[in-house]
């Protein structure tokens, strides 16, 4: 049960942005800017961005964010959707680019302790073709999910267990993006 009174049956962060739309708006605007636009020179596509978000959420053990962003990533990768679960299962053996692996390594360090993002990790990502914007966006995606995950878990929001619920969420995130739910007056 959530730690504060939220709308019944509304899952995860959605219940929180409906409760407090004045913070919900910048939180969704940030997700939209990071996961659907990104830095001008970035080579990451939307599916890659969602995968980084799901990967960090998995490290934080926040099932709601992991499942919903994994579903969005699967939807966006379309016929290559299997890479999402392969990456979440084992980055090293997943059939993704060396660049994305190097960026996921940076994301992992941001999640654990951002001070451990070393010059070597950043240089390795550059060697594989990561742009400045890729590095910036990866760090901020990972950092922001350390916020979203704590927000969702810290207030003990409702986490659906039915995979079909996430599939529908993933499609909505992949098509509509991050728009604040309309709240009845």
């Amino acid at each position, binding site marked *: 049960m959530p730690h504060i009174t939220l709308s019944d049956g509304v899952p995860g962060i959605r219940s929180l942005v409906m409760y407090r739309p004045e*913070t919900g708006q910048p939180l969704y605007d940030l997700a939209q800017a990071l996961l659907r636009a990104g830095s001008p020179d970035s080579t990451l596509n939307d599916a890659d961005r969602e995968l980084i978000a799901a990967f960090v959420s998995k490290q934080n053990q926040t099932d709601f964010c992991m499942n919903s962003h994994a579903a969005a990533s699967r939807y966006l990768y379309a016929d290559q959707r299997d890479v999402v679960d392969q990456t979440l299962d084992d980055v090293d053996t997943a059939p993704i680019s060396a660049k994305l692996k190097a960026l996921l390594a940076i994301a992992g360090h941001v999640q654990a302790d951002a001070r451990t993002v070393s010059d070597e990790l950043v240089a390795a990502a550059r060697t594989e073709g990561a742009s*400045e914007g890729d*590095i910036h966006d990866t760090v901020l995606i990972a950092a922001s999910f350390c916020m979203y*995950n704590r*927000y969702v878990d810290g207030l003990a929001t409702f986490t659906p267990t039915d995979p079909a619920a996430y599939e529908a969420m993933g499609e909505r995130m992949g098509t509509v993006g991050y728009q604040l739910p309309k709240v009845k007056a």
Partner: protein
Amino acid sequence: MAHIPLPDGLPGIVGPMAYSPVTTKPLNELAEVLLRTNANDSLTQGERELIASFTSRRNDCFFCSTCHGAVADYLLGRDNNIVAQTWEDPTTAPVSDKMKALLVIAASVQIGGKYVTPEQIEAARAEGATDRDIHDTVLIAAAFCMFNRYVDGLATWAPENPAVYAEMGEALATRGYVNYNEPQPA
């Protein structure tokens, strides 16, 4: 040196914020709402900044803890030395019992969201914390787990001179986050 080329001389988060205006707008709006617009008698602007600096200190983020500590000190009275005492030991710091209970929640959020327990929530309620106080405390602590990682994950530059932070603290306390980088009328 920072991990990506940033404009020279911009302290802490201001560097990456200049680099990425598209994300800076919502980041500043979030800080503005959480730390200033939402402030009320139940959870004041000074108390919100104290939670921000306390969380940043637990994350060992020098820039954010010092900067928001300076904002909190400005708002709570520099001579009262509340920030330093809260960093040292929140259980004995000269803050209200409600704030102590909210700082316990913030400390749990800093480790991970699942560390917040129903007992911690009940303890805060027993001291008069409302749903909104609890919500805002959790989100302030969570947001600084982001801001701190953004600042440290890109290895940004942090000034060492305390006077710089005192000046930033007053500017952020009085002018806020959304207008911070805009030129001020004379």
